[in-house]
């Protein structure tokens, strides 16, 4: 249908798109926390990996039926998110930004240790729920897992749009994000919203973790993807949910294309680093990202 070079290009875009969807999901969880509680969560990647491991625990180690396993996983991760907020982040409200950042950095190290201690460093494979025979579309190949990832992302976007637009909780969360004092005066419990944001974010991160470990492998070092999400959120704008999704997908595609075209020339290593080069470029040119709120403060 297309010439060979063009097909290759689209193929790279397509698989980049699927990986970008995972970034988008994790970035979504990240933005939910940042928007509602003003906390830049360096531990998002660890939350993601922890969620995936908990799911693994239920499905493989405890042999819970799949539907129940997912449900249990979501409940447990939501609780973990809520408790984390309650114990570690609540006392830091109003503290300088450095302390808050460092709390989440400490949290990420702590969770990394807990994950390593509980599950070890053997490479694990997530049980696959669907066939792995690749589908062929217009000369391009896509694995059903990648397709699932794309579909799940689409569903999440729809669910969250409805949640934030129409549900009482979602509207309360948006209110807290835009003005905490005013929403307190309107009778919204800001504490509850903070806890809720963390638990929603933990669930979203967990979904991202499950998808990622289905596509690749399950290993404590998967939390590395959490780091890759920074470029995505910065590109999209840190307080924009649309931005998180667009940013994640763009980073996924750019990374894959750079890996496909530049890696063979320089002999590897470009793919991992592209996202961060993009990150530095954005921070220099447009620090508030594509969709973020523009805050100008000249010094």
């Amino acid at each position, binding site marked *: 249908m297309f010439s060979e070079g063009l097909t290759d290009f689209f193929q790279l875009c397509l698989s980049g798109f699927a990986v970008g969807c995972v970034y988008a999901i994790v970035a979504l969880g990240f933005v939910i926390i940042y928007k509602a509680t003003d906390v830049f969560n360096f531990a998002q990647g660890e939350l993601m990996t922890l969620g995936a491991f908990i799911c693994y625990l239920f499905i493989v180690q405890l042999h819970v039926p799949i539907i129940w396993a997912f449900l249990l996983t979501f409940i447990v991760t939501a609780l973990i998110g809520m408790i984390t907020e309650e114990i570690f982040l609540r006392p830091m409200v109003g503290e300088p930004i450095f302390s808050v950042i460092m*709390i989440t950095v400490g949290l990420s190290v*702590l969770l990394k240790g807990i994950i390593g201690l509980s599950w070890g460093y053997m490479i694990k494979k997530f049980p696959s729920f669907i066939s792995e025979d690749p589908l062929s579309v217009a000369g391009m190949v896509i694995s059903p897992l990648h397709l699932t990832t794309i579909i799940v992302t689409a569903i999440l976007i729809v669910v969250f749009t409805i949640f934030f637009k129409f549900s009482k909780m979602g509207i309360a969360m948006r209110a807290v994000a835009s003005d905490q004092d005013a929403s307190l005066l309107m009778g919204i419990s800001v504490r509850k919203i903070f806890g809720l944001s963390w638990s929603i974010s933990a669930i979203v991160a967990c979904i991202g973790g499950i998808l990622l470990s289905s596509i690749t492998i399950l290993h404590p070092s998967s939390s590395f993807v959490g780091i890759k999400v920074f470029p995505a959120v910065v590109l999209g704008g840190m307080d924009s949910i649309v931005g998180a999704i667009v940013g994640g997908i763009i980073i996924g595609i750019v990374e894959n294309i750079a890996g496909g075209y530049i890696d063979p020339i320089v002999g590897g290593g470009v793919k991992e680093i592209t996202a961060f080069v993009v990150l530095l470029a954005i*921070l220099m040119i447009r*620090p508030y990202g594509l969709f973020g709120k523009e805050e100008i403060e000249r010094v």
Partner: protein
Amino acid sequence: MRSGDFKVSYAEDIRILQTTFIKICIGIFIVALIAYVSIADRYFIYLINLAAIATIGSLGLNLLTGFTGQISIGHAGFLAIGAYCSAILTSKCSFPFLLALPAAGAATIAAGLLVGIPSLRLKGLYLAITTFAFGFIVEHVANTWDSLTNGSQGMTVPPVEIFGASFDTDRSFFFIIFPLTAFAIIFARNVIRSKAGRAWIAIRDQDIAAQTIGINLLWYKLSSFAVSSLYAGIAGALFAHYLMYISPGHFELLVSVQYLAMIIVGGLGSILGSVFGAVFMILLPEMLKFLPDLLRDSHPVIVERFADINLILYGLIIILFLLKEPKGLYGIWTDIKVYWRNWPYTY
């Protein structure tokens, strides 16, 4: 306040060693340390040397983060540049150590300025992400640039050699690192009470106000980055020549976190705190190593998973200090001092 301790001039008030008692204490400490090193076991000298190297690094980070308020989550990147620069110059270009060390310092200053430039536009969070990305990129380059750094296998580094004398034992290295660390502490202490130091503190407290009263943000932010990265570069180079082997694993993200933990545990914005924090964070895992020895038979898990337990501990220490004792060990130290000074009264 001590009775009879009246300051009658400004110079007296900003003096570093305020009383004869403190001078005597420091004199005794130095003599005791040197005496201890000349008789101590190799292992303990090794720990002292590591702590001294870490002190230089954490001083640098504290000057940048604690005093100037510019968050750096990529300090391991500066350490790596210093270490690799000195290692490559001495092993591949056969530079003498005395030339390689300043060269490593200069290279890290250049890197520091490069990272510092975005700090003129970005604050807080964004700067944290920038430095984070920087640290990551440096580690990645060290890992992939095989021809220069030998990649993940790491490279061997010649020991410190000054005018033909080789300092390759732990004890002899101590006599290199000790004066350097002392100089680093004294320099940091002095730069803080100079115009530059006061400007840094002003920038930390309120940068717009600092700009308004005539502090050149460009110059002082960049100078803070330069001094901080110079410290880190020197620490990295010394580390490389001391261990005589470096690999990208020595400069991973966790090391940056470790250095941040040092200044948080020690006390942000305190010179003495940097020293406390560095010593504490170096000794802590070593002290913990005795724990597995005790539990080896009953709980073999603890020995196998020691690295993970270490991670958990780092995380907990950072979080607990931030939550419970934000002033760090230095805060505890001053509290104790005040307590004894006023005893038996509470104030």
